[in-house]
């Protein structure tokens, strides 16, 4: 867990740049409200990299959209979000526009939809700079070229006048990273930044993201379903399931000694390139629950191999375990000390999946 403090920055009163407290998001639907996020709390230190993992529908992206104020009006957002001490929820559009792209910026999965197809990349980069700074157009263009160079785009002098469709997927995503870092933000949220890309391109883009972080000293929230990407790029990990964090720990602890059956199951179900095929994978039976009518108790209980009566009755809180930096939401986390995925999960014949 690295804490980098940059003396040149204003507002170093607080150690934490981003403070999310009990964030909830509900969407209305025909079947009643969908509780997409059910209480997420985390604090991000200056320069720290936090990874958020979870499967589709676990609420990891919605959490970040809520922080950025990018959810549709119909969404009901509760809880608190503080960026550099300033509350982010309930701000007027023009107020949040001054913060977004300046102090906090976001990188989305698909660079083709986050770039405007009718403007050149350079124009979009310059726009990001001009919106928040009083400088001339020529200077903004120079800055755009600089930024493209930083993220490793070859021939930035020419590329600055290219349209998004003239670039490859990896180059577009690097251009998006350049836009995100344009105003030296304190926080960069990257939502599945490499999911749409091939693996060799993914390596290039992650490299560019690391460079952007070093250059700006920004803290990062990296949202992904890929535990491999998480392992190499973050200090701390938050595992989400059914709209709630179920485990948080420094990256090494999470990978080598998980304390929540879901985390253990996720790690056990990963095929590993660095191991022979001797071991069987441990699939987690069933499917994530519907977020409309969550039953009481632990949301993971129906899929959990260690489930007991208490799990079905009471939802466990995310509580500190062992050391202050770790927390898990499981009644039986103590039973997971020195346990392998194959010890608790069934690797046998394919089990019948019940239709949700």
């Amino acid at each position, binding site marked *: 867990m690295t804490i980098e403090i940059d003396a040149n920055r204003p507002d170093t009163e607080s150690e934490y740049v981003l403070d999310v407290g009990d964030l909830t998001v509900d969407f209305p639907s025909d079947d009643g409200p969908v509780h997409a996020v059910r209480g997420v709390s985390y604090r991000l230190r200056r320069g720290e990299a936090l990874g958020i993992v979870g*499967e589709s529908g676990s609420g990891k992206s919605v959490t970040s959209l809520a922080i950025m104020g990018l959810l549709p009006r119909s969404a009901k957002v509760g809880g608190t979000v503080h960026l550099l001490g300033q509350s982010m929820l309930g701000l007027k559009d023009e107020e949040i526009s001054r913060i977004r792209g300046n102090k906090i910026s976001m990188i989305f999965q698909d660079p083709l939809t986050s770039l405007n197809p009718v403007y050149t990349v350079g124009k979009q980069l310059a726009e990001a700079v001009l919106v928040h700074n009083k400088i001339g157009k020529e200077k903004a263009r120079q800055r755009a070229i600089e930024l493209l160079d930083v993220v490793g785009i070859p021939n930035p002098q020419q590329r600055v006048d290219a349209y998004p469709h003239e670039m490859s997927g990896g180059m577009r995503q690097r251009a998006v990273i350049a836009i995100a870092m344009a105003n030296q933000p304190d926080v960069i949220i990257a939502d599945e930044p490499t999911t749409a890309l091939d*693996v060799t391109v993914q390596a290039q883009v992650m490299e560019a993201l690391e460079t952007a972080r070093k250059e700006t000293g920004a803290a990062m929230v990296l949202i992904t379903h890929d535990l491999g990407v998480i*392992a*190499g790029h973050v200090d701390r990990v938050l595992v989400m399931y059914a709209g709630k964090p179920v485990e948080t720990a420094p990256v090494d602890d999470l990978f080598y000694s998980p304390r929540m059956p879901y985390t253990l199951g996720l790690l056990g179900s990963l*095929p590993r390139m660095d191991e022979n*095929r001797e071991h069987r994978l441990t699939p987690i039976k069933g499917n994530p629950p519907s977020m409309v009518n969550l039953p009481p108790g632990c949301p993971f209980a129906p899929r959990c191999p260690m489930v007991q009566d208490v799990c079905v009755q009471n939802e466990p809180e995310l509580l500190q375990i062992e050391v202050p930096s770790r927390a898990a939401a499981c009644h039986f986390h103590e039973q997971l000390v020195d346990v392998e995925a194959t010890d608790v999960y069934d690797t046998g*014949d394919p089990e019948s*999946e019940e239709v949700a």
Partner: protein
Amino acid sequence: MTVTTETAAAETTGQTVLSARNLVKHFPVRSKGVLRRKIGDVHAVCDVSLDLNEGETLALVGESGCGKSTTARLLLGLIPVTSGTVSYNGTELTSLSRNQMRPYRAELQIVFQDPFASMDPRMTIFEIIAEPLRVHGLFANGGRQRVRDLMSVVGLNPEHVNRYPHEFSGGQRQRIGIARALALNPKVLVLDEPVSALDVSIQAGVINLLEDLQEELGLSYLFVSHDLSVVRHIADRVAVMYLGRIVETGTVSEIFAGASHPYTQSLISAVPLPDPRKERSRKRILLTGDVPSPVTPPSGCRFRTRCPKFANELTEEQQKSCIEEIPALSADRDGPTTSACHFAAPVKLL
């Protein structure tokens, strides 16, 4: 230019069931406007030869656009070849008519990547799985029971046969796709990215199912994938493709322990490992630039425009051979694999 190396043949004792020789597939590129003149060719697959042995899993890996899915479709005769031959148990398939091909279609089946797009949303699961039986005139003979049996084989509840695809999750739908492919007792399954669209916890179940089925039914798999971690887990042999050509082949252990083609090396080195300590100490071979257009592929070695070895290590004299001469797949190069690089040298990456 065969893929079967001596070592591979020794490990998998089964005989060759499906083999391809010098497969070529060009797709025409047409001009815009009314005339739609042909203005070039996409060289999707170039001179690909491979052998799939009985009971083994051969993985075809590569990045998007490398021609791996096209190769799979050529093998099944789903699209016509430009040139080259495919033979199944000694019968040449490429010269057969549609009618003559029909009995072989039963033995060669495919599972598609997207379980949402590969099923008719207006058919029940029963109809989806029964369709191949009806097409081949086998339904009257106990088809109803066969469908229910197939449901249990792939780990689904047979009582759900009257439901529609949208009532199932992605993992369950992929199981339905597998049941449909198994309906005619095929010998060969082509799996085109069968688990790429699934979440990891669900993906593991489908991978285990595929492994069990192979053991029980003695199936041969051609496993098309971009995910090297899955390939390491499920495959016996691997063929790596780049821009329409196979650049390296070998058994799984040969490829992952001593890949000698610079492209395979950079591919393996780019895959992130779910292990923080290993990740921190790893050195990456980063590729620069992008895959060239398959309309005008580079001369000589197609990888040379991005090859770190070409750019950093080779002398001008050596570079000349990369530019002028297409490197053949050969087992006689340095390293345990069969590699298509003039300057192949094995590197331990894991």
